[in-house]
């Protein structure tokens, strides 16, 4: 866990890609879940942030 936080603080690609991937996955689940309409409403912004973040952080050093 501390490695993960250190990676985030030092702007390393691995942990930041992990955060972006979690955001994208959460956004897609929110988009397609059948339970709460407000989750559907905020799904796109979560996916968009995750996707843009993924493109950006994939240029960070290993």
């Amino acid at each position, binding site marked *: 866990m501390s490695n993960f936080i250190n990676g985030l603080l030092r702007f390393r690609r691995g942990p930041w*890609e992990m955060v*972006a*991937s979690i955001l*994208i*996955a959460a*956004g*897609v689940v929110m*988009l*397609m*879940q*059948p339970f709460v*309409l407000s989750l*559907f*409403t*905020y*799904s*796109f912004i979560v*996916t*968009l942030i*995750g*996707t843009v973040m*993924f*493109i950006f952080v994939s240029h960070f050093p290993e």
Partner: protein
Amino acid sequence: MSDPSENRAGAISPKPSTSRFRGISDRALAWTFVAPTIVILLAINIFPLIWTIYLSFTNYRVNRPNRDVDFIGLRNYERILSDSDIWITMQATAHFLIWTIVLQVLIGFTLAYLINKKFKGNDLWTTIIVLPMMLSPAVVGNFWTFLYQPQIGLFNYVVGFLTGADPSSFSMIGEVALAPWAIVIVDTWMWTPFVMLICLAGLRSIPDSIYEAAECDRASKWRQFWTITIPMVLPFLMLAVLFRGIENFKMFDLVVQLTGGGPGSTTELTSINLKREAFEKWRTGYASAYAIILFVTVFGLASIYVKALNKVKER
């Protein structure tokens, strides 16, 4: 005296490229060859994408080209993301996507595993299994509509024969509870061979020597399956899931031909709904915003999936 055939060959052979392009740097030459591709890519991929993003912030309607186009900010996005009908459409797509991928991977891998065993008529069976994939989705949709007919359909007859139910007592494409499964069955029937072929390529790429070494170490067949077969086929399987996932997310033709999105909007997938908004209701700006939402979703999913695929390949 020189051979005349040699002279002819000399006349036919092109001169070295260095003399023809003398005076042009390597960099300029490279750009000369690459530029047409970049121009075409910009014209047919990038420009429509940027134009769609622009239209998604407007109230443009393509059937009223003379009307003023107003910039309405994020209103299209707000309306789409608070529309319960679109939410239901997303759920129908999720149902279709998850079940088709699960069934196609399970059946496709099983078929590939069986076909990979050497037996008589192996090639004939491979050809027969691959046949559905070669058919047009319009043809498949049309003849499955006949197979699903309650009165004369073969599917209903077989289900009735196996379960004892009256074949005319249910309609696969006419009932709300059954229609989502009807499209899953047809897509699985059509595209399982594709997954099977990719898995077969993976299975055939595993060297026999690995299995022989495992036999020497007295590893059971079960252990060989889990520690050799599955890890080595996994990148191929993931590639198949990626292709089928993207393809099924934008599924249109097969479902339109089969159910037309009905009954009601039970099988109305996002691409069918999007087409209705764009070309039946002519709400171009709204449909553009809808398309951007779908694009970002597929792009995001594909990004993390490709990352996972590369990790599996590196192992």
